[in-house]
Each structure stands twice: as C-alpha cells, then as structure tokens.
C-alpha cells in the first residue's frame, strides 16, 4: 500500500480516527506522519500529556492583564525555570518549583487529579513528621471511639500517647 499523502513511499502507519462518531482511515508513511504531527507509536512525537497540561495552564495565564504577566515572570530560584516555561512544557524543573509556583498549582492539580493533598505512602526517613501526624490523627479517632463506648481508662492511655507524639513533633 502506498502512502496516501505523498503517494511515493509505502504506507507503514495505519490510523483509524473516530471524531464525533465518524470514522476515517489514514494510511501513511513515517515521514508524512511526522509532518502531519500524527502520533507514531513508540516515539515521543505527536500529542502528549504535556501538551494537554500546557493547554490547561494557557487557559489560566492567557489573560492579558498585568496579573497574568506577573505570573508568567515568576522564576524558580533554584533551577531558574519560569512559570511561562512551565506552562509551555507542562513539566517542573526541580522539586522547588512546587513551592515557587505553589499559588498557581492547586487549581491545576485539582483539575488533573480532583485533589490537592497526598494521602498515600510516606517515606520512612524523609516523611517522619507526616508519619507522626497521621499516627496522631489515627489515635485521635480511636480515642473518640473509646470515649463513645465509655471506655475512659483506655481512652486516657491514648490521650497520653497522643501528647507524647505531639511533644516529639514540636520538639
């Protein structure tokens, strides 16, 4: 089969597109696919998640006002990435960017994940404080349950344990 675009090279890529229920088939060669910006399986070209994110961010920074311009100029003091760059490529330059762009970040995360706060795994060493915090939350719930069951003695034990943990955290 010849390429439908150039009619010279053999078609090596076969696409089926369904747009609004209408099906079109496309049989083209690799170089024409690249020109047309079609996704080639196994390569990085074509539309990617990063394009999608930058689309979402564009939507936020596209306002022509002074605010938008100010936003775009925010620069990460560690890696030097600007917000404008980030919104173009959809990827952060370093972990500090999360702090630097914090203000703009939550609306984006909300749109991507529906959430803004991590509730999963915590690393043993780097996440010591968070582990303790979660343990305190867990103990408080447990204590509440015991109070409701009028098991005051064991609730008091939990209260003491919570105090200890809270002291550790502030100390």
């Amino acid at each position, binding site marked *: 089969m010849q390429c439908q675009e150039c009619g010279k090279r053999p078609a090596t890529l076969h696409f089926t597109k369904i747009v609004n229920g209408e099906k079109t088939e496309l049989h083209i060669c690799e170089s024409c696919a690249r020109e047309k910006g079609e996704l080639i399986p196994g390569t990085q070209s074509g539309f990617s998640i990063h394009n999608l994110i930058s689309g979402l961010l564009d939507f936020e920074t596209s306002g022509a006002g002074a605010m938008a311009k100010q936003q775009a100029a925010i620069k990460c003091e560690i890696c030097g990435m600007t917000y404008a760059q980030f919104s173009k*490529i959809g990827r952060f330059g370093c972990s500090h960017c999360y702090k630097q762009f914090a203000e703009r970040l939550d609306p984006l995360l909300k749109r991507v994940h529906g959430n803004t706060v*991590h509730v999963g795994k915590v690393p043993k060493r780097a996440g010591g404080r968070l582990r303790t915090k979660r343990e305190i939350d867990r103990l408080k719930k447990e204590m509440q349950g015991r109070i409701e069951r009028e098991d005051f003695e064991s609730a008091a034990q939990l209260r003491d344990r919570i105090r200890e943990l809270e002291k550790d955290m502030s100390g």
Partner: protein
Amino acid sequence: MAIRKYVKHALSEWMDAAGATDSDVVISSRVRIARNLRGMPFPMMATPAHSSAVADQLLGVAESGRLNGLGKLEQIRLTELTELEKLVMVEKHLISPNLANESRGGALILSSKEDISIMINEEDHLRIQCLSPGFQIRETWDRATKIDDIFEEQVDYAFDEKHGYLTSCPTNVGTGIRVSVMMHLPALVMTGQINRILTAVTQVGLAVRGLYGEGSEATGNLFQVSNQITLGQSEQEIIENLYQVAKQMIEHERAARGKLFADNRPRVEDRIRRSYGVLSQAIIMDSKEAAQRLSDLRLGVHLGLMPELNDRTLNELLVATQPGFLQITYGEAMNPDDRDRSRAQFIRSRLATHS
C-alpha cells in the same frame, strides 16, 4: 560484542509463565513508581554533572548489594546500547521511549528475568517498573514498593507533606504510581460493546489506550488500562479501583466470548482458522494485519479452537514481529517491504514448529 540476551529473545522470562491468573484476557500487569532525589534538578533541567551524579548515586544502590534479593541484576548505561538495541528494548517494554531517545545520563538496572526494570534519568530521576504475567496488580505493587523502600534507605527522596512524592510532571505527583494491565478484548470489539465500556472506564478516573495502535480501535484488540489519578488517593485505593474495574472488564469479555461462540460458532471458527491459514502461508504481512490475525489466534486458543498453539508462542510473536526485532533477527536496516516479508517469514516458521 555478543548480542545480549534481552535483545536476542523476544519472550522475556517473566512472560514465560503458563497459567497465570486470568491470562485468557489479561496479558500482563505493570506497576511503575516515579521518584526524584531531593535537591537535584529534575532530569530535563539537569546539567551533565547533575545527571551523572544522580546516575552514580542510584546505580550505587545496586552496587551496594542491597538489591541482591531481587535476583541477578545488570546495570546498563544507555550510551552502551546501539539505536537498534534501544528500539528492541522499547518494543519489549523494558525501557520507555523517553529513556531511549531523550535521556541524558540515562541508565538502567534490569533483572535477568526482565520483570524488574529500574530506569534512571528518565523523565524523573528514578522509575521503578515491575511486570507480571496475567492479572496480578496487587502482587506487582508489593514487589515494586519493596524496591522503593530499599532505595529510600539509601537516598533522600523529594517528598512534600502536602503534595507527596514530587515528580517532573504534575500528572504523576502524589503517589507517583502508574498501575496498568494489558488486556486482550477481541469479543468486546467484535460485538461492538467496546466503546461503551471504554467510555465508562474513563469516567472513573482510569485511562485506556490502544497498544500498538490508536484510540478505540487498537490494533490486535490490545488495550492498556491504567490509573489516571495519582494525588488524593492512596496506593491501595488506586490499585483496588483498577482491580475492580479490570475484573468487570474481564467478566464482560468472557461473557461476550461465550455469546459469540454460542450464537455464531461456525463464523467464529472460520475466522480463526482463516487467520491461521493466512499466517501459516502468507509471504507478505504488514504489522496491522499481523496484529489482527494474531489476535484471532489468541481468541482461538482461549475458545479451545487452536489446540496446536499456546499463549507463549503468541506472546513471543507479539514482540518478535515488531520492526526492531525483525531487524535483529534478519539483519540490519530493512525497508518496510523487506520488513513485511521478514515478518511473514518469521510467523510462518514459528507456526510450522508447532504443527
């Protein structure tokens, strides 16, 4: 240089497991964990000095012997590989296209069974990937999280109390995990139910993409279902959500196969035996036709209509008929016409050894 085992054999050792759970529908399960080192720019913004420091530090964990419990491991710097070797490893899903084509200071820690692939300086500093045959996402996660723990004993991760594990792309932040299953859904495609099901699946926070193909008409009826959300759900919730949805898809596919077979047995049988005939005899076979006909054979195996074949051969053919692999088998630099002839030849010879 001798051709490495992982380039020579299309079938990874981990795939060579007969009777894996739900393997009539699920070909493989995968868990990928993304992590970054604290205080280091992400690979995209890294200087060569940063990248090599990251690679040294992470490869150092393997060298320290702490990963020895995982079996025999090989450390590979991407610069040691030829373009063709990289392509083949992408086709086997041992490395990502990103690591193969775009990484600087990229490296890999690979288990000899090829069920563990630890990528360094990909989009993130560290990407731990574990693969299993059949439907085993819980077990695969258990393996991956243990490897994550071993690394965390040795290196400081970029972790934030609010946003969790920080990743280069905001779509991975939080847990940093991507869990996926590769499913073969020919009966749902044939009975026209697939679009309805895929739409439903995407509405519960999961993503579906065709493997070796585009959109809802994946070539070879292979679909990869994975979690989309990484933030605000725990790993267990993410895995459980995917588990339950995939389980239902498996049941729907089985029901559709049963109905197809009961209502149209001669037609189904004819289609499968025709594909077998074509694959056993054809001189030219393009990748699209190969994928579709191999899908027919796989369906045939699980309907009990292809006693002369098994999943093992089909899994091997899936990889062996990819462009990179054909070049390895039949010599360098092929044009697409050569490739279609080589593909036909490889399939013919493989099927012949079975009859």
